[in-house]
């Protein structure tokens, strides 16, 4: 297919662009296969807007006489308006945008066409390999092994080719366990807590069904992670009710009779369309220009977004508490183990492991616990807050995770190497990107699409010093402690950087950020200068002494 077929009017002049807080600009609109480009004609202040078609969530068109108006709502929550003279031009452009923003073939997406304009220092596709992760683990314990059982994705289609499992469990047993777990997602290692040797594992629900099926190998596998005489905790991310209902469909939960050393705790975390609707309602509330305070607070409440944040954080804190304070190992799962499970395991690691609070460590966490763990990004992030598609598989699971990280960052502003911008950047790229990182639903799909060969990795771009400096938190001081966030409603806030980003001018807040950076930078330079002077002085003194001695 040629993109040209979809573009009947590639260019329109005298188009007016309207954005909040900026005066309207007049200019030329161009459509390419992957971008909508607007450039103002003003010589003094030429301005260009490049918008990826894949970033467009929905478009609306209106006509007043022959002047057409297109309102474009983006996945990053921005809304822009284009006034296009000429009914036919406007209709053509609108239908092109509609077609180009909803291409159904992944291989037509921009990452397959994008040619980087920067020098690649490090190939991001090879930055975070399971072997490196295992090497780190091996330095602390020898109770685990790297299994290649899923080499051709033959055992579990949503797992990576290699996984970390208890040493005492062989591949044959794993195969049996896989048959007993939803989508074959058998328990694998998610996190090893060096401080006390406790672990966090994740999986999908066991297929116990109504007649209480059991699987000896499964029991043996999870028990292999327990210290003698110690108990473990199973955190089921569904309510007890939902978990019980799952039995009718062949799913279920671990019966204590078969897992006597495990305590099961149910922590209800919502999924799917409930989350999507929550996002839609929240964004609608944020875009409401009404001056009615009660209306705003009641809409904010009714969206339930902050309720979800509180639930997810609470479950993650509980998992972390079991590991760090109880000295117990933990198994986390919900139904498939691809959504709420990953929210819990990744947030617990941020709480427990200082490495995950560095830029590199956080990237590695996203790779391990989201991309390789098989969170179906392509399905979940297909549409954002302005879509009307109402597909069950669309859900802001990853955005909720990022929001939770932001909440912890807000409570521990000096404990993270990255800043809020870093999280916002990840949100943007998860929904629309020139990079291939978030394409596909799991490693198997990514390998079939040959993403590492055909597209550029987001990490190749981010991990260059030019980019990294934008994402560094000036307040960062490595903090080796476990950080326990507060989950009281008073401690949780609306993430303005995402949800009010396009609804209010940020000038004054940006200036505060600059001021803070410059204060800290100046002090560091000053300290360096003082140190250098001291050294120089010391050298001179020793020189003098040597002179004297001569």
């Amino acid at each position, binding site marked *: 297919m040629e993109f040209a077929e979809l573009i009947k009017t590639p260019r329109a002049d005298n188009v007016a662009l309207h954005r909040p807080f900026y005066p309207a600009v007049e200019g030329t609109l161009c459509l390419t296969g992957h971008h909508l480009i607007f450039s103002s004609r003003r010589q003094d202040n030429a301005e260009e807007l490049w918008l990826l078609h894949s970033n467009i969530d929905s478009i609306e068109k209106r006509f007043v006489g022959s002047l057409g108006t297109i309102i474009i709502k983006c996945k990053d929550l921005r809304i822009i308006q284009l006034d296009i003279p000429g009914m036919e031009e406007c209709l053509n452009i609108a239908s092109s945008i509609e077609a180009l923003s909803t291409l159904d073939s992944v291989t037509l997406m921009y990452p397959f066409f994008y040619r980087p304009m920067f020098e690649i220092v490090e190939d991001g596709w090879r930055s975070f390999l399971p072997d490196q992760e295992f090497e780190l683990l091996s330095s602390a314990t020898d109770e685990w092994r790297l299994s290649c059982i899923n080499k051709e994705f033959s055992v579990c289609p949503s797992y990576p080719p290699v996984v970390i499992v208890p040493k005492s469990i062989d591949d044959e047993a794993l195969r049996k366990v896989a048959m007993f777990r939803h989508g074959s997602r058998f328990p694998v290692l998610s996190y090893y807590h060096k401080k006390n040797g406790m672990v966090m594992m994740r999986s999908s629900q066991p297929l116990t069904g109504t007649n209480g099926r059991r699987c000896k190998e499964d029991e043996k596998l999870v028990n292999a992670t327990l210290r003698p005489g110690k108990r473990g905790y199973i955190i089921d991310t569904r309510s007890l009710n939902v978990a019980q209902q799952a039995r009718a469909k062949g799913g279920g939960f671990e019966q204590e009779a078969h897992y006597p050393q495990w305590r*099961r705790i149910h922590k209800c975390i919502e999924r799917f369309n409930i989350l999507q609707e929550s996002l839609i309602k929240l964004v609608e509330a944020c875009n409401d220009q009404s001056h009615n305070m009660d209306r705003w607070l009641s809409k904010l409440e009714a969206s339930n977004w902050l309720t979800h944040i509180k639930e997810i954080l*609470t479950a993650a*804190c509980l998992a972390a*508490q079991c590991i760090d304070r109880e000295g117990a190992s933990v198994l986390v799962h919900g139904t498939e183990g691809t959504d709420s499970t990953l929210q819990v395991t990744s947030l617990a690691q941020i709480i427990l492991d200082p490495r995950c609070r560095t830029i590199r460590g956080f990237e590695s966490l996203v790779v391990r616990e989201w991309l390789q763990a098989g969170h179906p990004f392509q399905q979940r992030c297909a549409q954002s807050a302005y879509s009307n598609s109402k597909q069950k598989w669309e859900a802001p699971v990853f955005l909720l995770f990022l929001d939770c990280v932001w909440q912890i960052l807000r409570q521990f502003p000096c404990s993270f190497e990255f800043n809020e911008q870093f999280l916002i950047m990840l949100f943007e790229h998860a929904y629309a990107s020139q990079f291939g990182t978030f394409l596909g639903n799991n490693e198997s799909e990514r390998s079939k699409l040959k993403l590492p060969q055909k597209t550029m990795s987001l990490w190749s771009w981010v991990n260059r010093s030019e980019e990294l400096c934008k994402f560094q938190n000036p307040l960062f001081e490595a903090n080796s402690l476990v950080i326990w966030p507060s989950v009281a409603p*008073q401690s949780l806030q609306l993430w303005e950087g995402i949800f009010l980003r396009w609804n*209010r001018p940020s000038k004054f807040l940006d200036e505060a950020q600059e001021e803070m950076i410059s204060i*800290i930078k100046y002090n560091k330079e000053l*300290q360096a200068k*003082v140190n250098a002077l001291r050294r120089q002085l010391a050298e001179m003194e020793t020189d003098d002494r040597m002179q004297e001695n001569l």
Partner: protein
Amino acid sequence: FHTLFVLQVENVKLLDRYTNKKAANGTLYLTATHLIYVEASAEARKETWILHHHIATVEKLPLATAGYPLLIHCKNFHVAHFVIGQERDCHEVYTCLLKLSQPVKPEELYAFSYNPKMSKENREIGWKLIDLKVDYQRMGIPNDYWEITDVNKDYEVCNTYPPEIVVPRAANKAVVIGSSRFRSRGRIPVLSYLYKENNAAICRCSQPLAGFSARCLEDEQMLQAIREANPGSPFMYVVDTRPKLNAMANRAAGKGYENEDNYDNIRFKFIGIENIHVMRSSLQKLLEVCEMKSPSMSDFLTGLENSGWLRHIKAVMDAGVFLAKAVKDEKASVLVHCSDGWDRTAQVCSLASLLLDPFYRTFKGFMVLIEKEWIAMGHKFSHRCGHLCGDPKEVSPVFTQFVDCVWQLMQQFPCTFEFNERFLLEIHDHVYSCQFGNFLGTCHKEREDLKIFEKTHSLWPFLLQKKQELRNPLYRGFTAYKELQPNTLPFSFQFWCGMYNRFDKGMHPKQCVLDHLLSCVSQKVKLEDSASELENKLPFLDGPLPSDACPLPKVGPAASKTPMLNTPQGYEGDPPPALSNGAAGGDGDVLSDVDQRNKENLSPPQDLHGDTIEVLDSEAKEGKPRHH
């Protein structure tokens, strides 16, 4: 030392609402001015001080397992929950506190006994720190249109106004006296702020005694004089900050609002800010929400909405923004009133001044603003704050709302204020503490009668001494920003956790950016000193510094030096249905297990301490060679 105590009670526990902490035993002391609680067990002696004047209510709760609970609510939103071993002791503390927290005579207030060992001279200088005349001079007054008059020197015009007031030159004594007879409590229109750039003025007064048809020539002349003092504008605004319905109801009592037909070229406008009673009950509801035990997000947001608190904050802010816009954008003068002109009018006028003039966003300027618009103009602090045993219906958080609005502005404009949040909290504390004379009484005349200038100290020099910790490190200076135009869409207003849940430390961010930046600022001075000292020792220094050779050293921040008090809180949820163990029974066992766990989680484990100490040690080691 012990003879100073009015009462001493052993075997008292102080409960903590949030950390599930097992309370230790301690001793409770009552002095003439404070309640002091000393925890017995702690390695470090932990003390809690509560000023008697800060106590709003004392309640005895039903007997609990640990003893007799006594719940104390403070005006600065501290909530202390004591459990006392003996009933007799509990009752004695209760009756003592009731008496101590509700003084009857002004002489009993702390300010009259507070003795910071300052010379008489310094005390007097302290009272002269804020001179309102200087502020009027700053605005260019006196000038062709405005004058400072002592027409009220014997409080004949208005006994709740100060002796010196600013009125239009064109308004002679007859006009002033005539107008005062037509205004509630004689509170005639006077100048609050003059915007020098365009001569537009903000003036304030009380409601006119207009009833359904009364008019007053002198009052009409007074408004005309105000309008004509701003020749650039053909009209002026008259803003009634009450809801229209309230203002209309007042007409039946012979009061009311200006009839546009009777005054030349005025534009009359209502801005619906609710009265003191609505505000009092709104705060009450807000505090109930703040005190809820493990509320869900919905509970909290619904409670916040139902309290109406942010709606009222927004109403005050909207009014301030309207005034500032009228003055700056429309170049029109504004006359503001409510009923008596000492509550809503004070809020709105001071907020507008803050938006228009960067001076009021400095330490000194903010003090001037409070002295001018609140203290001098007769905001009844004594009644609104309930300093003395009196009518509880007179108590209202009018000043708290103003402080809240200022905090909201700080959130939107982080670099425009010279001071930080703690400065606001300090002032708010002392409005209630009665430790300083500034906020005693209800008006200037009463303060003179109380001889506060002779017998008490002023708050302001005391706060200026603490300037280093109260400053805003992000402040970009006086000239960086002029007028502020805040966003007033509902999402721009936030619940101020640092005020209403200020004593619930577990809810606040565990690391404080403000502390970090303040320590940077103080370190900067030290570094600059040692840099110049070193440079003097190195006379032959030239060329670039070998800075690339030295790794960036750690700038010792306060944040890491303050050990992080951080323990997990009840994540299991309360009530704990989440811990159910499935279809089978035996839940009880699980629950008790969890309870046990909660208790164990209180004290940070040893290794946590170990980590902290290690961090400190390594820093100390790092620091050493540098000093050689």
